[in-house]
């Protein structure tokens, strides 16, 4: 416990220090911009390449300069996946529909798992769409370094543009699938399934952001580690599948015995999925404490991911 405490305080101290020095740098830059041109240009180098310093060494300003690149990566991913396919973007719809069908047959008709009184199709579809977005973010970003080694070895640009663009391009498919979910939702509403669209549905962007951040965070941690330990790449697809069964996708939280509910809180995705179902269909409970916990977990995973990522990106060409 002592060591753990020490680690936590040490990390916190480092982070605060790093943020502080970044702020100071920004201030200096700002002063230089408005200050005496001649003097500042004498002192100022635009780029200084040094051995690794500190370990919160990312330049968010630079990332912003490369926003066009992020946009182009997103476009490339979107265009290239479905070129020369017959159905094109329709695949975005076919995948969740077929999976929902299978889940409905297996888990509802055969296993007879509860769906909290919801139409099974709607129950599984919502779970699948949300989970799919998270899983895609995680899986595709986890390949960042190894998959892009060739291009990373030839030209410099902020490496974070790649995983960020992956998360954004997945957002496109998520939106399309969300529209599909909307159609089913309308259909079942009209049928009188008693769905309550909660006002808290306004929280949707927050939920999506949280999933994206969590997927991104886990993905870049894995991609950073796979530069050295390739075994992890084998684990990702398998691990995601296991994680799905640990998350209330094919079953509602309500079937879990009361004394085991706390275990659900350890999984940052379960509160998100529950919240999603609650705000759109008014079943289950919205677990505010659980949402806070998972947001906190997400933020710490994302921050440690970014730190690890930026450490690895400096020297990974020597390792990969």
């Amino acid at each position, binding site marked *: 416990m002592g060591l753990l405490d020490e680690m936590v305080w*040490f990390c916190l101290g480092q982070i605060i220090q790093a943020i502080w020095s970044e702020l100071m740098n920004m201030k200096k830059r700002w002063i230089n911009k408005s200050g005496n041109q001649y003097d500042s*240009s*004498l002192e*100022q*180098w*635009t*780029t*200084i*390449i*040094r*051995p*690794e310093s500190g*370990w919160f060494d990312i330049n968010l300003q630079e990332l912003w*300069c*490369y926003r*066009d*690149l992020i*946009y*182009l*990566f997103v*476009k*490339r991913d979107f*265009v*290239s996946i479905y*070129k*020369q396919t017959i159905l094109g973007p329709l695949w975005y719809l076919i995948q969740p529909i077929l999976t929902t069908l299978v889940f409905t047959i297996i888990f509802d008709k055969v296993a007879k798992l509860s769906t909290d009184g919801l139409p099974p199709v709607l129950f599984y579809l919502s779970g699948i769409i949300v989970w799919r977005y998270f899983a895609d973010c995680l899986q595709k970003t986890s390949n960042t370094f190894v998959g892009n080694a060739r*291009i*990373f*070895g*030839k*030209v*410099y*640009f902020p490496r974070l543009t790649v995983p960020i663009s992956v998360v954004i391009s997945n957002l496109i498919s998520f939106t399309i699938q969300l529209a599909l979910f909307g159609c089913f939702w309308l259909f079942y509403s009209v049928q009188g399934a008693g769905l309550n669209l909660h006002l808290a549905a306004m929280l949707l962007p927050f939920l999506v952001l949280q999933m994206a951040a969590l997927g991104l965070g886990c993905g870049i941690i894995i991609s950073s580690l796979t530069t*050295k*330990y390739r075994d992890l790449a084998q684990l990702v697809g398998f691990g995601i599948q296991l994680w799905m069964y640990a998350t209330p996708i094919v079953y509602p939280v309500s079937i879990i015995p009361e004394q085991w509910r706390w275990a659900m809180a350890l999984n940052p995705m379960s509160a998100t999925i529950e919240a999603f179902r609650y705000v759109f269909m008014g079943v289950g409970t919205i677990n505010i404490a659980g949402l806070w916990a998972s947001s906190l977990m997400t933020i710490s995973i994302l921050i440690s991911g970014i730190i690890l990522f930026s450490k690895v990106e*400096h*020297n990974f*060409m*020597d*390792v990969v």
Partner: protein
Amino acid sequence: MLDNSRADQLNTVINVEGLWKQYRLGSINHGTLISDIQSWWARLRGKDDPNLRIDQIQKLQNPTPSAMLDTETDRCFWALRDVSFSVKEGTILGIIGRNGAGKSTLLKIMSRLTRPTLGQVRIRGRVSSLLEVGTGFHPELTGRENVYLNGAIHGMGKQEVTRKLDEIVAFAEIDKFIDTPVKRYSSGMYVRLAFAVAAHLDPEILIVDEVLAVGDIVFQKKCLGRMEAVRKAGRTVLFVSHQLNMVESICDEAIIIDKGCLVKRGTTSDIITEYMKSSCDNRLYKDNLLNIKNRRGNGKILLKSFHIEDTSGNKWDNIISGMDVVFVFGYECQFEENLDNVDIGMSFHSIIDNQALTILYASYVGKVFKIVNKNGFFRCMVKRFPFVEGKYKLRARLTVNGAEADFPLDGIVDIDVVCGDFFRSGSPGFGPGPYYLVDGEWAVE
């Protein structure tokens, strides 16, 4: 004075100070995740790495150059050792060296692909590095989309690409196909488009590695023209190439890197001369001509060895066109008698059709020799060697009193001539094609 030094500092756009880069060989981690975490945690708190040997720790704690070199073991080696130089704005600096000398490592650090182990590089201005053309091209995207993507990867904004798009398309000569996916391009079109984007990056500092070697001759000329334009625009360029003639024609200054160290810096022609001298491994030195079977003549005197030197007596492997070169032929007499009226001739032949290009006997310039020693050398100095770059076959023949004494029928050796400053004007001339270079004075009336 002060103002001068200020201006000097302002002019310096790249400053490399004491750059070291270490690579580890073989396995790159301690083998287990646990010991990696141990090392990492110890480093983080400023304690000693429990997985390093004691002597390594001491050396890493006081990184003086000699101590650094001592850490070189079988597990790691230094790709760069204490490299320092600075580049002024508008300079085109050539970097030459053998394979594995550390050129690419230097470029990788300057292009921010990897970090140095010690030392720093400071840069003023936007850098684009061209270690490859067409990085990130996606086969499914159209030419236009790839131009945008490739431009953005090299740091160009969308508007900037839009502004230059017409120029890029014209340069690549593919205007009809710009909206076709690049996977349908011929490989020539692909390379041209990739290069066109690269050529229109407009950074303050351009780092180029060997990439000019793509495309046909016409396109290469176009690229060189583009480099010229870049130079005129006052941009700074770092240029790595094995093609010395290209370095010679493009660069103002050059540095040699060998075994990770910066050996010398100077004007391009000095550096190339130095490099050729140092990289001479006596490939051209022949001391076993006596073993040649296919020869004709009465054998009174035989060719024994051959090499070439410069006027200061350094042996060379190639000839730079325009240099003063000495051809040295060793001989051996077979009989114990003095020979009178000995003549030696050498000739250069085209490799392709064995056509004699020029023949030079000693007698042509009014010299015949009297041989008194059993062994010795004939030397022939040719001023401003007048052949263009290429490979030539050298043959030689000895006569005594007009009778053929020795004539190796397959020639002596093939000699490489590399492009040089024959005209003393910096112009490489027309390039390969014609064989001879003739100096003349032009005027208009």
